């Protein structure tokens, strides 16, 4: 589904990604772990198409197409979804109306008519139950005054509405208490299907107790330096990152 080869990227003139190789197939859950500043969030933004991040070398092939040729919105239409670490507040636009705008923008891109209102409401109701979101929440302005947990739950709610092929969860566990973490992880797990894939980006092993990865990658200084199964996450939790730095001679 996703093949990243020798990806290099710059942010404001600084080289952040220095040769990433990563392959994700349908049905798989991958986790990228790494210390602060290793380039994890940059990688997720580059895949989603943030314009300010410049790809200088390498390729990102998604379902046979070179993603860097497309704008962020076109990548979304193709089925790439990024759950933001810091979702943006949009005062005056309710969660429900934002979802309508988003769903219909995606339908329009596929040459489809707007979704009928009753169908939309039904879908919103179903998906919000999945994330244990109550109705009052849906009529609040998007992310405005939301707690950390509410913001993340709302991100996964959007993911549930869009049903992407590839979901990238950028530090989805940060700022979550244990209950919110459970709800969010539960939502992600329920959305898992044989034809979609998930990339979890995280600092801590904690989230991976709930979303069990098939592969764990360790990122250091803009490169993936070690890959393994889920046991690698436990090892990192126990021993930190220093032993890997030594092992790879960083």
């Amino acid at each position, binding site marked *: 589904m996703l093949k990243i080869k020798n990806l290099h990227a710059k942010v404001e003139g600084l080289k952040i990604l220095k040769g990433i190789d990563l392959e994700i197939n349908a049905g798989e859950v991958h986790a990228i772990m790494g210390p602060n500043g290793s380039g994890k969030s940059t990688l997720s933004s580059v895949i989603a*198409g943030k*314009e300010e991040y410049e790809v200088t070398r390498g390729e990102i092939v998604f379902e046979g197409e070179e993603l860097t040729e497309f704008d962020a*919105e076109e990548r979304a239409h193709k089925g790439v979804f990024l759950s*933001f670490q810091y979702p*943006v507040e949009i005062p005056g636009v309710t969660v429900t*109306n934002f979802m309508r*705008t988003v769903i219909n923008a995606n339908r329009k891109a596929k040459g489809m008519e*707007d979704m009928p209102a009753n169908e939309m409401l039904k879908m919103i109701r179903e998906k919000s139950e999945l994330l244990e979101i109550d109705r009052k929440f849906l009529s609040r302005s998007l992310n405005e005054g939301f707690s950390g947990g509410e913001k993340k739950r709302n991100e996964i709610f959007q993911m549930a509405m869009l049903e992407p092929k590839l979901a990238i969860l950028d530090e989805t566990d940060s700022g979550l208490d244990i209950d919110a973490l459970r709800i969010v992880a539960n939502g992600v797990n329920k959305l898992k299907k044989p034809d979609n894939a998930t990339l979890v980006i995280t600092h801590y092993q904690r989230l991976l107790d709930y979303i069990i990865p098939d592969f764990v990658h360790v990122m250091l200084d803009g490169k993936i330096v070690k890959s393994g199964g889920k046991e690698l996450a436990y090892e990192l939790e126990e021993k930190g990152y220093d032993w890997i730095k030594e092992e790879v001679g960083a």
Partner: protein
Amino acid sequence: MELKDKLLSSFLAFEENVDMHSDIHEVRSRAIKDFEEMGFPTKKQEAWKYTSLNKVLKHDYTVFPKKEDTIDYRDVEKYFIDDIDTYKIVFIDGIYASHLSATTHEKIDACLMSSALNNSKYKPIIDNYFNTVAPKESLTSLNTAFSREGAFIHIPKNTMADKPIQVINFSTGNESALLVQPRNLIVVGENSHVQIIERHQSLTDHPVLTNSVTEIYADKRAIVDYYKIQNDNHQASLIDNTFIEQHRESNCSVHTFSFGGNLTRNNLNFYQKGERIDSTLKGITVIGGKQHVDHNTLVHHTEPNCESHQDYKGVFAESSTGVFNGKIIVNKEAQKTNAFQANNNILLDDKATINSKPQLEIFADDVKCSHGCTIGQLDDDALFYLRSRGIPLKEARALLMYAFANNVLESVKIPELKARITKIIALKLGVNVGYSL
């Protein structure tokens, strides 16, 4: 002939037209002398530094409109907030249009200035309040000199107006360029409450200059909510002078929504004369082309424990210009004043301009005053967020501008009006409003 001279010579003819013996004959005569002395404001004056009236004043305006009575309700229906029941005081070219109006004298008076000026029943109110709130200032004096028509609203004490009042000034300038000068007086008694929606709307392409003066007197514990819809066509210019005197524990708000017009100048002054008064001044400006909108506000705190809240937002496209000049005066006696002022702007094009100038004159030492002004572009992170959800760039930009301006609407207390303004903003910004945002 210069417009000033033309106006001075028109004054005699005007006075002959109206009742020479009316009580305000002297007020008018004094006002024309004041105007003669002061003339029109120029950019040399600090308060007019960023707004030039030169172009607007070069038209050969007449102050004697012909009565226009061919306009049918259906032609102008869309300019009313028609999904709620309201009183309506409607003028066409400054002349009362009874067939479009719905006035009242039951419990409250929502009627005409001309009838209030000529009816002895209203003499005490005219004597007590007319031209008492408005300061001596050139354009206000000019309006006073030619004052004859406008809205007269009187809410006696302990009365809640049972429905909002719409004051709508249509202009046709059916012969040539027209200068209209509505004069409104609104007196709200103790513990009383009223909501007013005001609109100026030109119906033709003739140049129209409106120089409007509204005096509002809010007695103790009165609540006044005033909404100004400025969405006129691009040949029409508006100088709106609104003066509000508030007494103890009263609560007044003015929301100004500026989307249309060629040149719009809002002089909005709040004079607080009592303790525990609350004043709210809010505005949304969304303009483009060569439009110009100037908000010139004053809040004068004279007694302790009062508050004022100002929140003005502007979105400026193409070569439009905006001005915000917000003055707050806190007298020595006005301890424990809370005065807030915010002016946030987004410039969409290189040629768009905003001049934002807070002026705080604080003579008391135990006060909280804050002011903040921002001028910026749209946030890249926010744009990326929306685009990553599949919303195309153009719509994402519009949605962010909409969100930026929209929170000013939270304090609008008439839901139908809020919906209307939301729709105008969405249309202006090209956001899809197939549903209510």
